[in-house]
């Protein structure tokens, strides 16, 4: 059956750290199908993991009974050229400007997640979500893989 990878998978995930390995497996396989090499797929998976971790810690304060809405979307026609990851929480509104990475030279535990996300993904955008909470949208393009020219 000839079929294409051009529609999003939508997931409602419990805000519990227990489910992180499951989401990593899901996105890792999708990245493989989209055509990312192992290393880039790993960086995309790490970025989603960091973003989910931040939602669990900061948006839900560790409460495990929240829900995270996830959209994993291969983007491009007829063949996918990128993957777009959207994460939406229902936590207290937060000023997107407050979500930023710290100075890396100050070696201390924590404060690395946002840095990792911005370093690994091509575009990263935090915005207040309709009806409360925060919507994070991040995109990784196939042609931004190492060893290929940046567009």
């Amino acid at each position, binding site marked *: 059956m000839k079929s294409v990878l051009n529609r999003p998978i939508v997931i409602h995930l419990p805000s519990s*750290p227990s489910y992180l*390995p499951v989401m*990593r497996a899901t996105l890792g396989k999708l990245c493989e199908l989209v055509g990312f090499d192992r290393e880039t797929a790993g960086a995309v998976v*790490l970025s989603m993991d960091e973003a989910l*971790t931040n939602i*669990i810690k900061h948006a839900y304060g560790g409460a495990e009974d929240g829900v995270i809405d996830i959209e994993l979307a291969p983007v491009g026609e007829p063949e996918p050229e990128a993957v777009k990851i959207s994460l939406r929480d229902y936590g207290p509104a937060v000023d997107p400007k407050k979500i930023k990475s710290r100075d890396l030279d100050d*070696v201390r535990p924590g404060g*690395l997640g946002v840095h*990792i996300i911005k*370093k690994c993904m091509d575009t990263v955008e935090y915005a207040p979500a309709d009806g409360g909470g925060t919507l994070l949208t991040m995109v990784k393009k196939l042609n931004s893989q190492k060893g290929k020219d940046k567009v």
Partner: protein
Amino acid sequence: MNQDSHSSPVQSERWVGRATVVEVAGDIDLHRSSQFQQSLLDVVDRNPERIVVDLGGVGYMDSSGVASLVKLLSRTRKTGVGLRLVGLTRRVQSVFEITRLNTVFEICQTEEEALA
């Protein structure tokens, strides 16, 4: 039950003279990082001269796992204990590179080198 999710990240601890080699296994993420950190700090309490953390069994680590190691680093610096990391898989190595902590930690290629 599988090691990735249920058992302790620190699989074993082995003394080589006054150094101790700590073997870590499984994915280290938010689910397991606090247990990971506690086990690492327990090692410091046993007063080794040097701690070698063998990450060979760690296929995945995110910033919460890295944070546990940074916490260990500051504790060992305070108490004058040596700390070396060994056996980093490619994925774990790249997390250290992205966070530029590869220049902060002493990362060795082999256990011999880490114990030398």
